[in-house]
């Protein structure tokens, strides 16, 4: 939040999307008074899944691959099912490229500990 405002505070208003600008403006006072914002949670994997963005980002998985074209969304929504099958088809595909090295991609303990 603070990080975002670091820029947003100063960028010039976006003439095409006044609504967005208004939204952003509305956030400024909140930051000032330091009260909390309750964001609605959109993406969620069950607690029995161990997920880190780190490995996926370092593994060269683009944000859009899972989160969709967030930059195009007026309101954020979940585009991918986030089911085990969905995770696996990507994992298996990646694993097929370098089977020996990426053996763990189809190991249960990679996501379930």
């Amino acid at each position, binding site marked *: 939040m603070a990080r975002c405002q670091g820029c947003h505070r100063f960028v010039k208003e976006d003439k095409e999307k006044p609504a967005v600008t208004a939204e952003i403006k509305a956030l400024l006072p909140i930051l000032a008074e330091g009260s909390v914002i309750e964001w609605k949670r959109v993406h969620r994997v069950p607690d029995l899944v161990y997920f880190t963005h780190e490995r996926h980002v370092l593994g060269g998985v683009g944000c859009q691959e899972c989160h969709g074209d967030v930059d195009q969304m007026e309101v954020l929504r979940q585009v991918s099912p986030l*089911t*085990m099958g969905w995770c*696996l088809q990507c994992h298996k595909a990646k694993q097929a490229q370098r089977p020996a090295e990426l053996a763990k991609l189809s190991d249960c303990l990679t996501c379930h500990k």
Partner: protein
Amino acid sequence: MSLSFERLEETVRATHRRPGPGYFLLLLLAGSLAGFGGWAYSLIVRKGLYLTGLERPGGWGNLITDFVFWVGIAHSGTLISAILFLFRAKFRTAVYRVAEMMTVFAVMTAGLYPIFHLGRPWFAYWLFPYPNDRGIWVNFRSPLIWDVFAISTYFIVSTVFLLVGVAPDAAALRDKATGWRKKLYTLLAFGWRGTDEQWRHYTRAYLFFAAFATPLVVSVHSVVSWDFAVSILPGWHSTLFPPYFVAGAILSGVAMVIVILIPLRKWLHLEEIITPTHLDMLSRLVVLTSLIVTYSYATEIATSLAEPVADPERSTFVFRMTGHYAPLFWLMVTFNCVGPSLLLIGRVRRSIRALFVISLLVNVGMWLERFNIVVTSLAHDRLPFMWRNYSPSWVEWAMTFGSFGWFFFWFLIGLKLLPPVSIAEMKEELAHGAHGPGEVAHAS
């Protein structure tokens, strides 16, 4: 002809007459017993398995014992109807229908336990191989999966076997029945008209059913025995188990048939059809299987005692015979070995009362046998530090007795819907004697 066709049909139809209060009392008793068991189980579902007496090392107890017991009971039916059919054993005709009904309901009972004893029964469907999003299947190396296949196959096949046998009788009943019974028997008769064409296929198909069912009977309890034999637990890990279990299953099954038939023939006035000769034959079967079981006990104990003193195998059997559970062991020996051997004496065998008591005790003994195998072995594993004795909680007992309630509930209902003896086959026997359906001199 000792007994005319009409007389026969009359006697059978008589069994379907509106039952007296006694019947409904029994039904109520059975139903409420089952209900109580069900409620006890609901506690486990809601609160967890800590309500049982299970612990570490005793991961299995009453529930698995019941499971094995009921699978055992389920054996006699198909044995009598299929194997004896192939062996052309005459005495089968009068009794096999009851036995088959017993089989079906016993499997219905047994089949519940694999689900009951799960920690997370709501995931029981994971035990079936079905294509799923996660792309993960079942482990076909696990004896529990063999169970799933064996039990479900056995259930389906023996049900089909039962209904196919019923079809011609249903036709016979249909034609004189009225109201909902007419509807029911029309359904069960499956468009049966008794033409030579139908009989032509029927007799052949029946032979095949028998042929399929026979190895199935042997396989099912072998599979159940492998639940234990395949493990490495002293007292479980034994190549003797399959034959030993099958024999035991037949023993308990036939004993159960006797226990049920004796009151039944009185109550339904089937004395003319189910004669003392039949009971005599069955009791011989009991003696035979009891001897096999006795032999198995002896072999097990002898081989284990041949081991050096420190050997876990030996230790486990010594524990069985002298340890915390010893009384149960000796009761088991008395009921399964000593009791039936009395039937070698003709007088005892022919005394209905004696036969009834002995058979009843055999059933108790067989339950104890399974308890002995399951519990004592677990209680006495390889690391003495982890020895611990299991004792069932009231919840487990409730579910054990509940299972009897459940079984007899269905059985009582079944009696009033299905003909308790095969009319067609009886007629055939009456008309000619020697033959069962299928065994017919064909022109071709």
